[in-house]
């Protein structure tokens, strides 16, 4: 285990098991046209933030130190994940991925490469997709983090989860949480008018109803699937954005619940 466990997560508010969905948040209008590929922007922000982090950590530590001495080299941080806020103390270089997996028991996000190259760790931060292995946990205070575990409403799957299930968008399942989080963000990006590298006409906003297969592929090209369940993944996104997947896509007659 990379790190020590030294704090208890806060108890969730009993009446708010599913607090506000972060990805349903009204986006900041300034961000709307800020970047052609928002996740790339996020990744760059993360890299920049990594350099700035020690300053952040010092100020945070200074506030905390009087009240409650922290383990040496650690800082207090409050993370809001899937609608629940948890207080943790962390070494400031701990990535969001390690904090999720090792400290909060949220192992749905996977460590495929730990270098921001495979996409298996993709989560949503304020509704935008982020490689959680490329960003530090201490930078995520005051942000709403959604992981694969937070997409469903109780027993009801998120439409993107249901679409992956119905269109067989996986084999081994290891990349699936990242694929689904990326696909949820994709939908949001299209609705906000974000263009991609293959958007044919930059003067016209893309629309979910007419989003081409090529657009879907391009917008998911940051997530690897070694089993190559890619046809199912494209079909799942098509279903979730209200398109009709091509006839070759499969209709299940039964889902086996393990």
């Amino acid at each position, binding site marked *: 285990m990379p790190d020590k466990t030294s704090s208890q997560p806060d108890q969730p508010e009993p009446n708010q098991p599913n607090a506000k969905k972060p990805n349903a948040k009204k986006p900041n209008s300034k961000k709307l046209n800020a970047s052609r590929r928002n996740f790339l922007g996020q990744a760059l922000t993360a890299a920049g933030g990594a350099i700035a982090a020690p300053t952040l950590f010092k100020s945070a530590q200074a506030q905390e130190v009087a009240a409650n001495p922290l383990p040496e080299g650690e800082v207090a941080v409050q993370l809001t994940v899937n609608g629940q806020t948890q207080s943790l103390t962390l070494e400031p270089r701990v990535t969001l991925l390690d904090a999720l997996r090792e400290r909060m028991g949220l192992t749905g996000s996977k460590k495929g490469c730990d270098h921001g190259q495979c996409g298996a760790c993709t989560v949503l931060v304020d509704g935008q997709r982020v490689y959680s292995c490329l960003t530090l946990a201490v930078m995520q205070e005051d942000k709403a983090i959604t992981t694969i575990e937070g997409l469903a409403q109780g027993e009801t799957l998120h439409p993107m989860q249901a679409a992956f299930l119905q269109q067989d968008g996986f084999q081994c399942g290891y990349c699936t949480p990242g694929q689904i989080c990326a696909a949820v963000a994709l939908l949001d990006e299209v609705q906000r008018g974000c263009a991609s590298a293959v958007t044919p006409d930059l003067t016209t906003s893309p629309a979910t109803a007419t989003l081409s297969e090529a657009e879907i592929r391009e917008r998911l090209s940051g997530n690897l699937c*070694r089993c190559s369940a890619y046809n199912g993944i494209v079909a799942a996104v098509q279903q979730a954005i209200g398109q009709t997947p091509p006839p070759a896509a499969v209709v299940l007659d039964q889902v086996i619940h393990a």
Partner: protein
Amino acid sequence: MNHRRSHESAVGHVTGKAIYTDEQRPLLGMLSIYPVIAPHAHARITRLDTAAAYEVPGLVRVLTAADVPGVNDTGAIVQDEVLFPTDTVSYWGQAVAWAVAETETAARLAAAKVQVEYEPLPPILTIQDAIATQNFHTSPQVIRRGAPQSALETAELRLTGEVEMNGQDHFYLETQASWVIPDGEGHYQVYSSTQHPTETQLIVARVLGITSNQVTVTCLRMGGGFGGKETQANPFACVAAIAAQITGRPVRVKLNRQHDMMLTGKRHGFLGQYQVGFTRQGLITALDVDLYADGGWSLDLSPPVLMRAMVHIDNAYYIPNLEVRGQIARTHKASNTAFRGFGGPQGMIVIEEIIDRIARTLKLSPELVRERNFYHGSGETNTTHYGQEIADNRIQRVWQEAQMNAQFLERKLAIAQFNSTHAYQKRAIAITPVKFGISFNKIQYNQAGALLLIYTDGSIQLNHGGTEMGQGLHTKMLQVAARTLGVSLSRFRMMPTSTDKVPNTSATAASSGSDLNGQAVKDACETIKARLAPIAAQLLLLLPDEIPQINGKSSEADLLQELIFAEDTIRSRTYPDRQVSFEAVVKQAYCDRISLSATGYYRTPNLSWNPETGKGNPFYYFAYGAAVSEVEVDGFTGTFKLRQVDIVHDVGESLNPLIDQGQVEGGFVQGMGWLTMEELVWDNQGRLRTDAPSTYKIPTISEIPEHFQVHLLERASQPGVIYGSKAVGEPPFMLAMSVREAIRGAIAAFSPPSLEPDHIPLPSPATPEAILMTLEALQQNASSEVLVKPWLIIENR
């Protein structure tokens, strides 16, 4: 059967709740381990000092060879694979010691403090170097049919040449992972991401110096395997087990991606050197081939990989005179291992290269030469070079259907039209066949077991010896059990694969998972049915004289014929209104003291192999497929676009078309990755320079052709296999040869039709860089009169 049922873990996968080895809830006091990596491909270890590591807070222990309680070796076939090297480092990255610490971070910091001194030795890094220095793991293997030498001498035409192909990293998204939990009484529970729990159990026991019954190995599921967890999981489970034994605490290991790519073996790179004799019509009359596999530093599974390459050198073609010799090069690289296809693809690439050369030499279309050489008829012309007759030859069927579905001829004309009007982009279409032998080459592996446990509420636990790595084996096994018992899937809980439930299992490999385990599951279900039948008869008030007697059958067979197990009830065939629920029968069985658990067992019949003569019937049957691929190559950059793929593949009577379609698509794309983009690069010191997804390119969603049609051959039930199905894991991998051949065709199209080259030596993988270099070489050859042609063509007459 034949239901498109989703994966049994589907809901777990889409909600992130499916638990893999390293997703389990950590245990109190769990330790992590981290390797001390050797920065040489070949070196003598002159000093190893661990003292400084102990200054790191959280370090518990540094493990070295002195800590191995049993045998310091993890070799699978022979014991030549030292776990902690004591005097010599044999490949770059080899772990010479492991730090055990409270956290992974502490283990990593401590590992960096271990001081090791080396005396570098010259490494052998290529097959060519190994040949030059005669560095081989084993003696040469030979398979021979007819009289190839004299047939070559009398052949109308003859070609010699060589073809080399690179290996392939498995790049399973889940890296190698193991957890080992000691119980304090000398027993070890190992959770491992392994395709072969039994072998992991045996080797952990060997390394710990205890008997196998003290070790239980469980595989929950894998985030991909592809052969890379058949043997490669073992060393890491072993190190964790040693740490658990010494500390008495649970230990976990999950390799980081760089270590995984550096430390674990890959698909074998191969070199093939050939001489082929053929007629002016393109019929192959003689073939003589030397195959060299890059085995890496230890033997691992190289002998059966090489053997599979040798018995697939024919692919779908009848070659009357053939000799193939095989050698395993010993190089200072990670030990190459199983990978989907297991040598088959490497053998088949050689013959497809040869066929293409024959076609271009004779100015015939490659598909025509392929078709002319197919196995056909019966007897000699339908018998392989190792003496096995192809009992159910479906090559022509898949070939014709694939051409028809793809509208091959029409598109070929349209492509010629396109090429005549486009100078800088050229297209080509190619079709290649696949014939792949199904069964483990090693006969003893062709057995499987299952364990069925029924509880008094009618719920069922199903165990079998196969592991789930995403291929849908568990789903298929549930379907087999539900169908055989006539009950609904919701009754079942599929249990993780564990050596304390089903012992002495084979690796889930060789595409055999469903064939072997399916029959074992069916056997267990039938045992239970035979026990339940008399109880059901009593509950249905069926008297013995009411049961129709079938000539020659036992009364038990008569009873099972009379009872219908379906839809969670058991009813009488003669008196359909008499029926009883499955639960009621189960409850009564318990009251009557009838056992409600049963094992199942299966061994594949009619297999034979004589390694001395290279003859026998090593395969229970063959799987067939054909793929049509169309590419467009850009002459300025060498990039290609895969425009359209049409596949016809034979999976028999599919157990689950949804899963099988996924296997065909996934196998094809993985094969395309191997042949066109996945480039392993070692530098001249033997350091792998492509050790991350940033430098090692696997296919992404953007490389999938927009038109990608997979058609499962219809009316294709396979007798003697579980519910008429056929193996599907590996055969589709080789369908991707059509992409390589299409690229070759497009390269040829850059020359004017009258000046098309008669040989296009395309490297493998055919990366854009390689394509561009091939194009440039061909253009240089065409423009100068001095033709540099190491590939000699001899006209005998």
